[in-house]
């Protein structure tokens, strides 16, 4: 009589004679074992969406969102340290200011040091689309690169360089940018 556990996850395995030998009215039984197993699996898979505070900043002075503007960051963690982040920024209307310098966003968790140790020039971990509300041709696709020197992500345009307040497109009222990144974190 008794139970054993699986090698890796420690899931409870009922002894095949357990139900016969236990005193069933007081034996918590398989329901309790199954609940424990389910909780353990669920915590490891972590297949749930969470929200974090997305900060849109710039290397010299930060942009200011206008009326109705917002930032939004959500992430999913899977298996168990892979992080998938989805973000969007709406510049808003009156009161928007571009700030100055190249634009950056933060991540919900630090990038695993082994990957973050890639060169300081950045590591491609995602993509983003910028919608220019006033001009179709300056809407742009950016790579999203992680900079380990400052633990932020920057935006790399197709023509080279970095997206900043002057090039390749100047953000203005009612413009938007959204994108994703995926990376491993060492956080448990």
């Amino acid at each position, binding site marked *: 009589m008794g139970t054993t556990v*699986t090698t890796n996850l420690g899931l409870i*395995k009922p002894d095949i004679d357990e139900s016969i030998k236990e005193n069933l009215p007081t034996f918590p039984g398989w329901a309790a074992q199954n609940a424990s197993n389910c909780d353990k699996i669920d915590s490891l898979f972590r297949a749930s969406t969470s929200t974090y505070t997305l900060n849109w900043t710039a290397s010299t002075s930060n942009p200011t969102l206008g009326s109705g503007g917002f930032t939004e960051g959500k992430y999913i963690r899977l298996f168990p340290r892979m992080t998938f982040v989805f973000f969007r920024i709406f510049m808003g209307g009156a009161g928007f200011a571009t700030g100055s310098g190249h634009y950056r966003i933060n991540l919900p968790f630090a990038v695993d040091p082994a990957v973050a140790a890639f060169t300081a020039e950045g590591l491609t971990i995602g993509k983003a689309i910028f919608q220019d509300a006033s001009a179709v041709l300056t809407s742009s696709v950016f790579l999203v690169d992680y900079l380990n020197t400052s633990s932020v992500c920057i935006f790399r345009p197709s023509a*080279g360089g970095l997206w900043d307040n002057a090039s390749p497109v100047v953000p203005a009222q009612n413009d938007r940018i959204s994108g994703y990144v995926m990376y491993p974190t060492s956080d448990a």
Partner: protein
Amino acid sequence: MALTLPTPVGSNFMKDFPGQNSTAVDRIDNYAGPCLTSHPLQSYIPVLSAVTTPPVLGTGGSAILRGNFYEIFDQIYLWAEFRYGTGFSAGSGNYTMSLPFNVDSTIGPDIAAGGAVVLGNGFVWDASTLLGRQPVIVSLRTSNQVQFCMRNNSGGASRNVDNSNPITWAIDDGITFAARFKRIP
């Protein structure tokens, strides 16, 4: 079903269920256990090559050739890069870098830009010129090699990153890229 978890059967539920449940948790553990309980981030050294003559990485502090990949069952999330060091040689022909596994793809590899499955993105790093830092598309050239395709409306002479495109290679220049794919076991 991937795990072939047993559906409870048998005329005596009280007797039969424990054994079936024991089998089920073992199968879950075997499938997901190693991935969930170890840190699935691993490293590998990619092979930098070119179609005609392989480049020589060079030496010194700026010479880098490395890769990491995160493994979720048979799904691979990979990051890799190289930077040229002292004494490098740019080689000849389209540049390639190796993957740690063969790729399972229904589209498959192709030597033509636009003919193969796209695995990810990256950028050329020009240490001396800001506008030389250009994004590239990572496509599958062979079953375990990628090549790098780029934007060409600025008048470049090649659709692919090679020994002379999109920049004239120098010390500290290189490529950093990310790719994801399903591996062949």
